[in-house]
């Protein structure tokens, strides 16, 4: 953001101020840097002063309106339009200032076109009118590279891990969102993951914050931000969004939806895993130990590459009902390259069904 004071549009190509009730219009900041080749956003504050004469010779209207914004070059040639109306209505009194906040999105094609035409600046202009007179103001937009441009987002893509946009999951299943942020310039990305849970979506959805995201993004580019583990305990429909506080984007954040399906059976009883602790390193003597479960025919140690329990595990070991601890044999450990894994225990019943399961724990493997 640039600490800009008003610099009136140099040629005043578009101004008309004859006996106008609106005496001035200005925009802050009046100068922003936008990237060539990708879309950008700019947060603008328009200040419009409406003046009246004590003699009543100069009249003013109650409505101050700007029907649309226009991109123009320095010669005044129209490059593009933003069909968004800004309007405020206020009873006519003495001198009065109207403030309009606008986040304008500058299309990538327009910036590319301006660059190809050899322009180094374009202008975003609005004319404010109250039916008795009009005043215009313009923000200068300097064309520059993505790294040197002002901090703004050009694209935001929310999804669940794996790229899915809608998920149906079982209660307790680990589900994480992610967002890919494309940006120009440098600055702090400030956002909050928020979720509306079934306790409200059955009526009026109310979002509650999950966790804040604060990250300095530098020199334009793209980044992947992983979200928190989402609540999946209650059955029903959830709404998820990323509320963005900075930079200004001027839009309602995109929503994702997920559904936790009702389960036929009760949640599986917890099998208590005694060791290893979460985050432990796997060694030749790492002991997987658990509390016995009545009726179990066998126990299974599952080692997985992700926090998802769907699909077959990477490797593991099956133990008999009489065992309450095992050590992974060398040929099983050999399958695990250095990295981060997750493990859990299952108690298998006589018919092959799962009687109980332990929560996933992290396991790390480093090179010997």
């Amino acid at each position: 953001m640039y600490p800009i004071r008003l610099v009136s549009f140099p040629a005043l190509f578009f101004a008309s101020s004859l006996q106008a009730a609106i005496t001035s219009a200005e925009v802050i900041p009046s100068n922003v840097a936008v990237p060539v080749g990708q879309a950008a956003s700019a947060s603008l504050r328009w200040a419009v002063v409406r003046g009246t004469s004590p003699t009543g010779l100069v009249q003013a209207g109650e409505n101050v309106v700007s029907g649309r914004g226009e991109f123009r070059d320095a010669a005044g040639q129209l490059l593009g339009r933003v069909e968004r109306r800004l309007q405020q209505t206020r009873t006519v009194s003495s001198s009065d200032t109207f403030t309009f906040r606008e986040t304008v999105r500058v299309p990538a094609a327009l910036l590319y076109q301006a660059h190809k035409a050899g322009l180094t600046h374009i202008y975003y202009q609005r004319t404010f009118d109250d039916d008795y007179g009009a005043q215009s103001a313009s923000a200068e937009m300097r064309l520059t590279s993505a790294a040197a441009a002002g901090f703004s987002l050009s694209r935001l893509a929310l999804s669940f891990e794996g790229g899915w946009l809608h998920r149906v999951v079982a209660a307790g299943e680990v589900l994480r969102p992610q967002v890919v942020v494309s940006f120009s310039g440098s600055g702090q990305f400030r956002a909050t993951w928020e979720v509306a849970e079934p306790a409200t979506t059955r009526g009026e959805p109310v979002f509650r914050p999950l966790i804040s995201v604060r990250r300095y993004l530098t020199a334009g580019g793209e980044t992947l931000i992983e979200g928190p583990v989402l609540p999946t305990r209650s059955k029903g429909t959830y709404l998820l969004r990323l509320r963005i506080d900075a930079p200004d984007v001027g839009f309602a954040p995109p929503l994702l939806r997920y559904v936790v399906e009702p389960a036929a059976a009760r949640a599986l009883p917890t099998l208590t895993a005694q060791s290893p602790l979460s985050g432990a390193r796997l060694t030749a003597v790492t002991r997987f130990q658990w509390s016995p479960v009545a009726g179990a025919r066998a126990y299974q140690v599952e080692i997985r590459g992700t926090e998802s329990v769907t699909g077959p595990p990477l490797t593991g070991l099956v133990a008999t009902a009489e065992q309450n601890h095992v050590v992974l044999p060398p040929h099983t450990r050999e399958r695990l390259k250095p990295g981060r894994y997750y493990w859990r225990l299952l108690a298998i019943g006589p018919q092959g069904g799962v009687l109980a399961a332990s929560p996933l724990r992290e396991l790390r493997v480093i090179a010997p």
Partner: protein
Amino acid sequence: MVFLHRPGYRFCCGWGVIFLTLFFQRIAWSTPALLPAAEGFWTPDAALRIEAGALAGVGPERRAVELDDMDVTALLAVEGSELVLYPAQPLAPGWHQLRLVEYTDDGEIIERGFWRFEVRRSSLWRERGAEVQAGLSLARRLSREITPDDPQNSLEGTARLDGTADSGTWRLRGEADLVYQPRDVLRSQAMTPLDATAFSATAARGPWRFTAGQQAPLPPSLIAEEGLLRRGLSAGFERPEQGTQVTAFALRSQEVVGLSEGIAPSDASDRLAGLTLTSRPLISRRDELLLSAAWLQGRDPGAVGEGVWGDPDLTASGRALSLAADGFLWQRRLRLRGEWASSRYDYDGTGPLSAETAQAHTLWASYTPAQPLSLGETRVNWEAGVEWRRLGSFFRSLANPAAGADRAGWRGFAAASWDGFDLRLDTGREHDNVDSLPGLPRIAIDRWSAVLAWSPLQWQPPAWLGLPRLGLDLQRSGQAVTRDGGGLAAGALRLTRVVTFSAGFDYERGRWSVAHTLARDEDLALGGDSESRISELSLGLQPWESLNIDLTLQQERYDDNGDAATTNVADLNLSQQLSPRLALQLGHTLERQTSVWMQSRTTATQAQLQWWLREGVTVSLEGSDNRYAADVDQRDRQFFLRLDLAWP
């Protein structure tokens, strides 16, 4: 023994000993075999019998059996010279693998047998079946505060469908998630009240494969985002033994949800079509060289898809080509990867602007030593690498819409681990305005980061420390203008520094962790800076089997050129299994934001009591109290009685 001294007898006895030795060795180490099933095929609950010869007689510490990469040695029974495996769970129809290994006295692991076998439901069908998991949820609002649009009663449902048919010649598989949601606000724009959110269907015969629905046919490259998931159609041909795979695809440019959007990408303005080819030409060393090529073309209607925000006026078209080679040298110690790509991108599709052509290429090398270094009595494992890349100023691909362009430079990285320490270093220098576009500045970007983590490897910490983990993360990014332009003069532009310290402790029945991040960003051209301090505490306890408590506290102090703001978030969740059929869940969240401009306080409390009546039937009582206090106060209380039905 006299006759042994006679030459003739000596000759005969010598050959006899050799013969007998070989004979008994053959008996002892005859190749183990997986015995065929009685029906001619294995059924899901069939026992697996291995004729193991002498290996059946050795102790379990000398041999092991793996079923689908799981060690099942403990389940083996010995019947004569046979090892018999009775799997703990029925095997899924399809192909499985069984491995028999022997441990020698010197600790070597020798594979004595490896078999792939097929489990079938019947002699005609390897697999045939359909699974449906369905649920219906009825809710009745109990609270009196009802806004006109809110229903008193609501109904929603889900179904997950999964069907498979496999005759051995044709393989068909389909899966879909169905959702019934009559309320507009709770479903995606394009969805009807009863709709499929995602689905895929695959038909395969021999080397041919056809897929419809959600899929990710493009391998990651400069022109394709990793795991790009889109709805569409594809046809592929695969020769695994030759390592060759060819896939032709036509996908939606923007991902969609709901069947009303159709299956085939029929709209040319929202279609991405192309071809991918991968090959492993070294037959005997398949993993050592991978060649890949991808070509695509299409049009993008702009960021109008689900979950996406961006340039709504974009109506771009383009095409792109990527050629890549990835291989290992020097006994896999040196890995080399190179990629060349070209794109032709038209910002306004069929509009008057001309298309922009650009190239990109990247070279990547990493080295891993065969033997770790020795540092005193400990060993240091390490690897290091370097990457050089150049992305043209207008390099853009429709299949990689988020990717940055206009970069050239190098990056070096190294990682080492020893005695509980892990260290990762990363440094690089890049610049933009790669194609020297007139009027634009050139920015040089220097980055480095160091991440150090420690957890005890040999040292046994006292019990009160649990399993400790410490981490330190340092990052620095500096920018400087190296060529005037865009209103910027040469000189330092920006400096960003981030330091994060974290500590975590895990116990048998709980964990806790703390983290603190200090970040500072300085605008060296215009002056001014911002600073952010974030502190986090996370706690998870399971005091006894049925109770779980999770608490997260986060505080951030942000100062932007003197404008200070503070954000506090606290999140507490508790779940208690009151009895085998009754469970309670409580959650409370508090967020407080304070700045010179505004103050706000958000509180959200939720509670749920769940009673499991019988298999598939659950009754719940749930309520929420939400309050937002700022310039105006908003409060919302809702209570519901809910009946969940699930099948099967």
